[in-house]
């Protein structure tokens, strides 16, 4: 079992060496490259990382220095992390799609001396801001293509560094011992990695995690989900995100399982299907997009097949979750479910690549109950967890058999949770961070004196299930003018559960009533338009189409109905809404890189629309500056219509909240 | 999209189900007589009247006598289209149903089936066609080719020519042209022809007609015109015959010097030539016309009741009667078998013995309702499966065939050694050819 190893090792390089001894011949990493899954065993990985580390030390990398890691999920970048850690230096992963400015900030803030990058694109990006990065000496790149003519005084191929290290190791036996000493010299309490949070507001913060704590946390969850060296995970989420680092990298090293890297972003779906992971994580957004795609593709199927599909999905709704939870189900239900499994669920999971998934998690935001139930009903063991970078991911997670869509589970093993008086969730966990990098003030801000971390989220423990329920960011929970509780995220999520709605932004704090701005989901609405012969030339035209408004009006009405049923929220029904003429985009800063809405920024940017929403007008003009993919800027103008909504009567008169 | 899969599925299921069904053996409470016929394909013109004759006579027995020996005959046609492949397939499909005897009606098919006969214990009755050497009963206990082999036929024709020329000795220096279907069937008589040519000093000219050219034949007949043979002998089949008759008349060849083997003497063969074909000669061993009680019975019990496929004007024409002749032999063999075994329902092994003891005298022909229909068939024995019976010459008078000679006996002395050689050669080449183990019954 991996746990014994984990118990001994307190840094990742140490774990790696232990794995190389224990699972030497088992695959540690795969990468779809040149058409096949190139595979490295733990022993090979260890050998490469050692050579790499030696190569890096010969380039002058010293203990405690920082190295940026920029790029997609690729073995060489993961090896870079390990090789850097082996020397006691600290890797700083950066999102591959970060624009040059963000990149410059992180690299400068983290004082990186070296950067391991994926390809020409990243090299170009860094070179464009190099004048701001005085400390950056050298870049190592994975892919040589296009870099042949570049000035190589500050560039090295990673292969060359590894080769140089390997030669050095071969030439000098002592070097190996020296390296062992270096690895051993790193303490578990030393910083293991600095992960920069995307941050919903303001500049990112560098969360410093220690090896000891990281491993402790990962060991707990590995045990919790019974992961072992036979599992496989697909590393397709951003390398710089805590989720990837925890779920794939840390758990992979602790459990000894295999981490597979897709060929590129475009082939991730196909690669997922090929590799057939047994441990899977996807944010609700991804799951939702997937479900939308499933439903759309099924619309194109023949009538017979479609009927069959929907029938068995119905059967699954009825019995699937209960069977998964081990509850009692009538025999007829079991038989129907078995047939459905043969005809629909099994093949469906197969084409989605979920056939072998034992444990799947989703987190990051609230998940629609239908969406959640769908995946569980077809037999995917999907669970929720709640966490954040500062906790090294896990705060709560749902154990098998106690799964609910609207709660995020009880505290994860060895985690303490406390709800503050203002409703904010506080925790203390084995994996919690040691502080923000070079920012004592911020660190102090989020830590309570007794060592708890403030999550910034508002939530409470559900009476029925005893599990934590998160309603919104603590600071976003506001009140309407009449004092009714207004949790915008809660409303937005309810709206976003409709496949037609991709994004919703709710306003109401300090106002008379609640209004929302919606983004349509182009795939779903586009497909609907095609089926209903609704002609449109552009996103903008489709978004403004009266029939689309009609359709969305129904959705909003349903949300109002649901809100009315909840005594805390009934007063916060949506009175007016509009459909935005463009998609909210991370390039324009409207959403974060992890696709979270920056509500304040949006309100500023679309101020004329907000005004219109509250002044009763039925149309408003807006023009916004947008950034195109290639970095050029332009302006989009539109006239946006606004709809009024009827609200549901509030069931019982209630006392005004204090 | 869906449709395709459904079709594929149904087709596959159908294939499997039918194949399984087809392979089930039938329970036998009747005498099973499969008839390999061909009413389709390029040789259908010869195949159809024969098929009708065979079918109708056996049906008549069923209708009139309730079968043979009180047991119904189960008559079943299997369409071969004169195609060897389908012939073999027919064999495989009938063999599990206890067939009494198989009449392949194609030399090609016969050749394929001969080796199978002894293994599957089904006798083959290849009436005046097939492998001539099969007349040697010692080597081919399961194959019968009465009343005569092709070689017998050729010798009869030469004898007839000799007669017309005023003695075989007069043949010296004469030229005999031989026009034949360029296949095993047509080539088989050539060795005997060449030997006779040597013996009697006449010249031989060969005019092969490829199967696919048989409707043209103009080059062959041009050559005939050039070579001016004194006599023309034809081994034709199917559509080759009428075309040859037409070409002969067009080229002004004297029709009364043009002689066909018995397979070139159907009404259809000459009819196409019309008046111009008048004088054309052909061998025959079965009766002409419908003036026989049994043929009248067929008309009464079968044709008039609409149980036959024969067209009215083609009833009892030459090849129809040939088919009848063939089934008379079958019926007699079955009767013999019943007598020999004492069983009512007989199978192939029994009928083989019945065939070996076939013995139809003139009186017996009369008894059967065929007075004067054919020459006696008395030569069959365990050693001789052909009988080397004689045949007569018929001549086309412009409308119908007329019998113009008495029975011409074959030159047994010339034929027999060739047969023995051929049989020996066949057995030598076919390594592992089984020795005859079947006992010999006395003729009845």
């Amino acid at each position: 079992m991996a746990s014994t190893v984990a118990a001994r090792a307190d840094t990742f390089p140490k774990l790696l060496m232990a794995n190389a001894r224990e699972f030497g011949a088992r695959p540690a990493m795969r990468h779809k490259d040149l058409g096949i899954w190139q595979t490295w065993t733990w022993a090979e990985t260890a050998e490469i990382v050692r050579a790499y580390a030696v190569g890096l030390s010969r380039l002058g990398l010293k203990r405690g220095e920082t190295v940026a890691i920029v790029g997609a999920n690729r073995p060489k970048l993961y090896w870079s992390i390990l090789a850097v850690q082996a020397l006691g230096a600290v890797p700083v992963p950066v999102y591959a799609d970060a624009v040059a400015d963000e990149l410059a900030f992180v690299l400068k803030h983290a004082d990186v001396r070296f950067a391991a990058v994926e390809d020409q694109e990243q090299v170009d990006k860094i070179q464009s801001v190099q004048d701001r990065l005085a400390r950056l000496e050298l870049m190592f790149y994975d892919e040589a293509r296009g870099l042949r003519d570049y000035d190589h005084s500050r560039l090295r191929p990673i292969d060359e560094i590894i080769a140089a290290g390997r030669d050095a190791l071969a030439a000098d036996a002592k070097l190996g011992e020296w390296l062992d000493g270096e690895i051993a010299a790193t303490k578990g309490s030393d910083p293991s990695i600095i992960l920069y949070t995307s941050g919903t507001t303001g500049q990112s913060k560098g969360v410093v995690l220690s090896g000891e704590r990281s491993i402790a946390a990962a060991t707990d969850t590995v045990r919790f989900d019974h992961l072992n060296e036979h599992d496989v995970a697909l590393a397709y989420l951003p390398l710089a995100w805590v989720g990837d680092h925890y779920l794939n990298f840390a758990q992979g090293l602790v459990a000894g399982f295999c981490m597979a890297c897709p060929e590129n972003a475009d082939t991730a779906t196909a690669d997922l299907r090929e590799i057939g992971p047994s441990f899977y994580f996807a944010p609700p957004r991804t799951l939702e997009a997937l479900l939308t795609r499933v439903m759309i593709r099924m619309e194109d199927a023949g009538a017979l097949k479609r009927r069959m599909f929907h029938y068995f999905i119905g059967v699954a709704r009825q019995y699937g979750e209960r069977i998964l939870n081990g509850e009692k189900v009538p025999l007829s239900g079991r038989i129907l479910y078995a047939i459905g499994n043969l005809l629909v669920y099994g093949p469906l999971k197969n084409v989605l690549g979920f056939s072998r998934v034992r444990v799947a998690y989703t987190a990051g935001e609230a998940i629609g109950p239908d969406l959640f139930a769908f995946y569980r009903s077809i037999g995917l063991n999907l669970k929720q967890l709640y966490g954040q970078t500062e906790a090294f991911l896990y705060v709560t997670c749902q154990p098998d058999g106690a799964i609910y869509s609207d709660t995020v589970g009880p505290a994860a093993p060895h985690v303490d949770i406390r709800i503050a008086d203002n409703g904010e969730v506080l925790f203390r966990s084995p994996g919690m961070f040691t502080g923000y990098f070079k920012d004592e003030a911020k660190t102090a801000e989020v830590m309570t004196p007794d060592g708890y971390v403030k999550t910034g989220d508002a939530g409470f423990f559900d009476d029925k299930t005893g599990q934590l329920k998160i309603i919104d960011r603590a600071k976003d929970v506001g009140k309407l003018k009449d004092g009714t509780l207004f949790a915008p995220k809660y409303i937005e999520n309810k709206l976003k559960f409709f496949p037609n709605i991709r994004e919703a932004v709710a306003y109401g704090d300090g106002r008379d009533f609640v209004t929302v701005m919606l983004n349509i989901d182009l795939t779903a609405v586009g497909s609907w338009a095609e089926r209903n012969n609704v002609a449109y030339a552009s996103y903008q035209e489709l978004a403004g189409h009266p029939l689309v408004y009609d359709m969305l009006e129904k959705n909003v009405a349903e949300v109002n109905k649901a809100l009315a049923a909840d005594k805390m929220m009934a007063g916060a029904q949506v009175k007016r809404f509009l459909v935005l003429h463009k998609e909210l985009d991370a390039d324009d800063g409207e959403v974060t890189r992890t696709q979270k809405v920056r509500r304040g920024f949006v309100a500023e940017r679309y101020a004329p629309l907000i005004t219109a929403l509250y002044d009763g007008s039925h149309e408003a003009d807006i023009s916004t500056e947008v950034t195109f993919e290639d970095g050029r800027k332009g302006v989009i103008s539109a006239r946006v219509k606004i709809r009024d909504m009827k609200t549901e009567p509030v069931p019982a008169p209630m006392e005004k909240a204090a | 999209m869906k449709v395709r899969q459904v079709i594929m599925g149904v087709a596959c299921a159908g294939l499997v189900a039918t194949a399984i069904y087809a392979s089930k053996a039938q329970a036998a409470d009747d005498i099973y007589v499969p008839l390999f016929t061909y009413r389709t394909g390029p040789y259908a013109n010869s195949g159809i009247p024969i098929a009708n004759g065979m079918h109708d006579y056996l049906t008549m027995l069923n209708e009139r006598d309730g079968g043979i020996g009180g047991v119904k005959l189960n008559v079943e046609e299997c369409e071969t289209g004169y195609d060897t492949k389908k012939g073999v397939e027919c064999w495989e499909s009938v063999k599990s149903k206890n067939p009494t005897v198989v009449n392949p009606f194609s030399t090609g098919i016969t050749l394929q089936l001969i080796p199978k006969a002894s293994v599957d214990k089904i006798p083959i009755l290849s009436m005046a066609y097939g492998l001539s050497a099969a007349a040697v009963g010692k080597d081919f206990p399961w194959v019968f080719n009465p009343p005569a082999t092709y070689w017998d036929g050729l010798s009869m024709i030469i004898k007839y020519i000799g007669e017309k020329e005023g003695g075989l000795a007069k043949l010296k220096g004469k030229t005999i042209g031989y026009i034949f279907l360029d296949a095993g069937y047509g080539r088989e008589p050539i060795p005997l022809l060449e030997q006779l040519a040597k013996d009697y000093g006449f010249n031989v000219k060969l005019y092969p007609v490829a199967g696919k050219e048989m409707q043209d034949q103009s080059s062959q007949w041009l050559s005939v015109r050039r070579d001016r043979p004194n006599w023309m002998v034809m081994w034709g089949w199917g559509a080759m015959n009428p075309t040859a008759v037409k070409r002969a008349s067009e080229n002004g060849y004297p029709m009364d010097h043009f002689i066909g083997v018995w397979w070139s003497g159907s009404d259809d063969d000459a009819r196409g030539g019309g008046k111009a074909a008048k004088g054309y000669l052909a061998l025959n061993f079965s009766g002409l016309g419908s003036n026989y009680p049994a043929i009248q019975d067929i008309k009464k019990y079968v044709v008039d009741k609409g149980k036959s496929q024969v067209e009215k004007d083609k009833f009892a024409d030459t090849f129809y009667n040939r088919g009848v002749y063939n089934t008379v032999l079958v019926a007699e063999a079955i009767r013999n078998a019943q007598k020999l075994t004492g069983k009512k329902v007989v199978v192939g092994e029994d009928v083989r013995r019945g065939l070996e003891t076939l013995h139809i005298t003139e009186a017996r022909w009369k008894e059967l309702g065929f007075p004067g229909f054919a020459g006696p068939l008395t030569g069959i024995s365990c050693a001789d499966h052909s009988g080397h019976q004689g045949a007569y010459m018929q001549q086309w008078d412009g409308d119908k065939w007329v019998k113009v000679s008495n029975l011409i006996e074959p030159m047994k002395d010339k034929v027999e050694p060739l047969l023995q050689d051929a049989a020996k050669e066949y057995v030598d080449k076919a390594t592992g050819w089984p020795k005859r183990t079947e006992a010999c019954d006395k003729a009845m």
Partner: protein
Amino acid sequence: MRAPDTAPRARVGDVLLSVEDVSLSFGGVKAISGVSFDIRQGEIRAIIGPNGAGKTSMLNVINGFYHPQQGRITFKGRTRAKMRPYEAAYGGIARTFQNVALFRGMSALDNIMAGRTLKMNVNFFWQLLRYGPAMREEVEHRRVVEEIIDFLKIQEIRRTPVGRLPYGLQKRVELGRALAMQPELLLLDEPMAGMNLEEKEDMSRFILDVNEYYGTTIALIEHDMGVVMDLSDRVVVLDHGIKIADGTPDEVKRDQAVIDAYLGVAH
């Protein structure tokens, strides 16, 4: 993209191929008359001219598909009056075609693998068994082909029958197939015909990359003057089968005969 100075760079070496006084006619119709020019190692050489100028015929002569009635072709120091297509291929000349000439029934991968045929030589017996040396050879060449696939960024369509690909991708696969031959001289017949701006930019990039990364000498026919001027080191201009100009893009651009014959009618 590139510095405006398009003078021959250091990478350009000796004469790789020279065409001397070549004439070609079809049943009395002259397609090429007395054309001479050369192509140097490592350069990108463009052949331009109005429609019917004999450009494609020139390429066909170079790789031996047409046999000129007159003239000589010297390739890698060997001179011959006519070349057989497979000799040209063995010698290291590969090409793409004006109208995509892919093997439509095969996948992109198989098309490019087919380009390796010349380099494969395991005997028939092992091919029958598809084992041992045959399989090793297959795998070895697959690796090379995968690198080309990676180079041209066509991973997703590897298994797609080329007939189903959009035109731009077909052109790319065809380039891949030619590259698989590891040619010394690559002939491109209107590599960007029928492409949109974005596809043209991609293709230009690939052509430059090929020239740079593999050091392949390239001769190309192209109608888009902008592309020609950007890409090529030297340009030869044909008109009605006669050479009317030869030189750097700048020189050609200023040549009066060219302006009259070609640029004057350019759109």
